[in-house]
């Protein structure tokens, strides 16, 4: 019996592998080709805040330390040899590695490290990543070096004193404890650049006099050039076409196995697919709609169920703009919605109970996602394992809608328009689901769904015209603070447009970040998660699960949700091709 099984198994295996390992050819074995859609913004580490740029910077520059493999809470040294954090969590000391060379041959010194961080803070462009330095080093709540009129408002001393050289070490002086600071330092915006080289490129000379001139430039000084300490160096950037990286042969660790990495911008899925099938591309980005097309094909490895640190939510607008074109009459008269529609908790609950996560995840995400209970999503610390979630429940929905506005809503019904940004299928589908389930409750309820291109969607969202809006968030650093502040605080990047103002929440968020004691932090974040469920300021729609696809001759790729470019690309240092 057992014999049979073994035989069958053997046969099965041998059938799966039609060609034996040894005589299988690897297409261009020392070059890795990754075809994707994103267009890089900039090669300047202090400027780049998009994953496409981040991915390249990650492979050319190095920060003091990096996340260890796939983990989001352990670190391994890079430019730093070792580090210590004072008990009060205010002083971070990094011992700088010696004998590290920049790609142009310069030797890396602690001064370079200090320059890199200061330079970033001096540059601090609008919409850049540098706020992550400002909050810990200048003070929580400081998101920019400028005031609302765009004039520089942070005196140079503050920047200058924030980080200092002490012997062969570099010391960071925090304004207050900031739990995730170490995580922030482990990323591309904390990349170490070569001071002399930068100055030679016309960058900030490191003096107080001129720092204002280098603040918030039109285009970054290192837009097109790179000189890092990392495993790869920039060969060329053909805008809109591709970027080519070459191995750095005198890397301070053993040089990378790949000779070159080509990241091509290929807009059309069909083109990427054919390249993958032909073996011309080793990694490709696949739109979720098409993932099934390349499943279990010979020569292609599909790695599934990769947990991401990205979540999508729909935000209820508590005070819709009076002259919004999407609320009909603007009154509770059946052919419109009042501007304070969603400030009534029953309405929010009604919507919450009308969303069908199962259908949504099945249809829109093809099963590759899950329903988070709150902004504190899986993969982050301090997730409350038994946080409550909403689920489709027409009965509940109905009785909440009946209670809303003292029954007036149920009487008169309402009419409102849901927008989604064209091209984003999941969001359209989520809107369709709301429409279906809510219109079924009461013939007087009617929801119209309209697609708008992103610029228009953005305009209406900023203007407060949208009654509800979908937005997604991807972790800057794997800490609850990054999420709760964005999703819940009154001034949060996502929540700022919904006019949800809960002082308690804001206080909790602020105290949570400066709290050094993990136990205390946990209670704070648990409390926030509870409030989120009770108050439903917004509704978590999904936390997607990622995939990675590669030719089966690729080895060594690893997944870390916080590394830019993952799950499709990522860190190319350990990657090699062959059977």
């Amino acid at each position, binding site marked *: 019996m057992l014999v049979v099984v073994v035989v069958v198994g053997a046969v099965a295996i041998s059938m799966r592998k039609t060609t034996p390992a040894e005589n299988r050819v690897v297409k261009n074995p020392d070059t890795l080709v990754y075809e994707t859609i994103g267009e890089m913004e900039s090669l300047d580490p202090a400027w780049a805040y998009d994953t496409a740029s981040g991915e390249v910077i990650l492979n050319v520059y190095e920060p003091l330390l990096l996340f260890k493999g796939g983990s989001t809470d352990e670190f391994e040294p890079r430019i730093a040899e070792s580090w210590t954090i004072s008990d009060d969590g205010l002083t971070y000391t990094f011992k700088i590695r010696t004998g590290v060379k920049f790609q142009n041959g310069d030797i890396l010194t602690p001064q370079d490290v200090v320059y890199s961080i200061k330079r970033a803070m001096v540059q601090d462009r609008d919409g850049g990543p540098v706020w992550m330095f400002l909050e810990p080093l200048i003070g929580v709540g400081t998101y920019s070096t400028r005031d609302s009129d765009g004039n520089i408002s942070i005196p140079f001393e503050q920047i200058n004193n924030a980080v200092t050289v002490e012997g062969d070490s570099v010391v960071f002086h925090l304004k207050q404890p900031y739990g995730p600071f170490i995580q922030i330092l482990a990323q591309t915006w904390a990349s170490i650049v070569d001071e002399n080289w930068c100055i030679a490129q016309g960058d900030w000379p490191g003096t107080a006099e001129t720092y204002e001139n280098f603040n918030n430039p039109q285009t970054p000084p290192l837009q097109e050039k790179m000189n890092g300490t990392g495993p790869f160096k920039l060969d060329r950037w053909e805008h809109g076409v591709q970027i080519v990286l070459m191995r750095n042969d005198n890397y301070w660790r053993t040089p990378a196995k790949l000779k070159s990495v080509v990241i091509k911008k290929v807009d*059309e*899925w*069909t083109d990427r*697919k*054919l390249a993958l*099938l032909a073996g011309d591309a080793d990694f490709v980005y696949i*739109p*979720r*709609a*098409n993932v*099934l*097309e390349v499943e279990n*094909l010979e020569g292609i490895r599909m790695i599934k169920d990769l947990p991401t640190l990205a979540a999508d939510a729909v935000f209820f607008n508590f005070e819709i703009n009076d002259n919004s074109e999407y609320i009909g009459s603007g009154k509770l008269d059946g052919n419109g919605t009042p501007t304070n529609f969603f400030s009534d908790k029953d309405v929010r609950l009604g919507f919450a109970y009308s969303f069908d996560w199962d259908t949504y995840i099945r*249809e*829109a995400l*093809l099963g590759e996602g899950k329903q988070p209970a709150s902004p504190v999503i899986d993969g982050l610390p301090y997730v409350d394992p038994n946080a409550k979630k909403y689920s489709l429940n027409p009965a509940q929905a109905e009785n909440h809608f009946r209670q809303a506005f003292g029954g007036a809503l149920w009487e008169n019904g309402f009419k409102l328009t849901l927008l989604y940004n*064209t*091209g984003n*299928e999941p969001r*359209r*589908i989520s809107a*369709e689901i709301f429409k279906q389930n809510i219109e079924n409750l009461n013939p007087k309820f009617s929801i119209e769904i*309209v*697609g*708008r*291109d992103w610029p*228009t969607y953005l305009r209406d969202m900023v203007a407060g015209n949208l009654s509800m809006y979908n937005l997604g968030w991807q972790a800057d650093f794997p800490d609850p603070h990054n999420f709760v502040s964005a999703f819940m605080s009154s001034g949060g990047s996502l929540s700022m447009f919904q006019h949800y103002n809960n002082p308690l929440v804001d206080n909790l968020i602020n105290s949570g970040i400066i709290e050094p004691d993990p136990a205390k932090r946990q209670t704070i974040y648990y409390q926030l998660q509870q409030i989120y469920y009770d108050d439903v300021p917004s509704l978590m729609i999904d936390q997607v699960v990622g995939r990675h696809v590669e030719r089966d001759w690729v080895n060594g790729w690893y997944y870390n949700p916080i590394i830019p470019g993952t799950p499709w690309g990522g860190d190319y240092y350990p990657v090699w091709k062959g059977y």
Partner: protein
Amino acid sequence: MESLSNRWNKFKASMAPRVRELKFSLRRIKDSPLSIVGISIIIVFAAIALLAPVLARPQSSRDPYLIPHEGFSPTPRPPNENHRFGTTQGQYDIYYGVIWGTRTAFRVSILVVGSALLIGLVIGCIAGYYGGIVDEVFMRITDIFLAFPYIILIMAFVTAMGASLDSVLKALIIVWWPSYARLIRAEVLSVREEDYIEAAKAVGGSDFRVITRHVLPNSIYPVLVMASLDMGAIVLTAAAMSFLGLGAPVGYADWGQMISFSRNWIVGPPGNPFAYWYTVVIPGLFIFFFVLGWSLLGDAFRDILDPKLRRR
């Protein structure tokens, strides 16, 4: 009575040449197989447009131009008994889409050609009839429009007005009138010097009267030809806009958009490359034949009405 019959005869006499022209043209059309094909194609489409509610019954009371779809699954499904032409990305029924798409096509082309023609006529006549500085100004303006590759201009306008079918309509009108104005002007210039115009002026007819009664009738033909050719061209452009994602909203019955749906499905799984052929081919054929119909007709007209080629 006497005088009336008299007048009638006069009228007949005066109309005789025009009538002959018409008869002649009609015969030419009859004799040219291409134009016959063109006309019949257009008739078929017109029928489809009119019978749309019968051919593809709209579900419930919602806007009939929204294509019905079962579920949201992205993968297209091949033709089957309840989806004659299969379903495209997002499970939209292709059959329903193309049928109602015909109406969209007619609406777009007629609206655009009509309005553009009107603007073109007015401006062209004024420019050509009065000449001088007026003419100069208008023609420089048209220069500007014609110096652009129109697609870019339309794209710019559409993005400006926010991607939607209406924006495409408006943009098309804005971009299309100059070519008509140009043509009309040229024609008007050529007839302006004719004796009968001089005569009409001499007997003190008002400019408006002269233009409408004497200038236009004698300069309208080539413009009509162009218009009929454009009916197709406009649908092409509109479709292109939808294809670039600047046109009709998702799920709206519009040929161009249905093709854009198929963009990701032109190649099937390995071993079965044409698995999703229907998503590409079917809507495309509809556009193609619609345009073909108008172009054939227009081309025949052009040949017939071209005074240089008449008789021989």
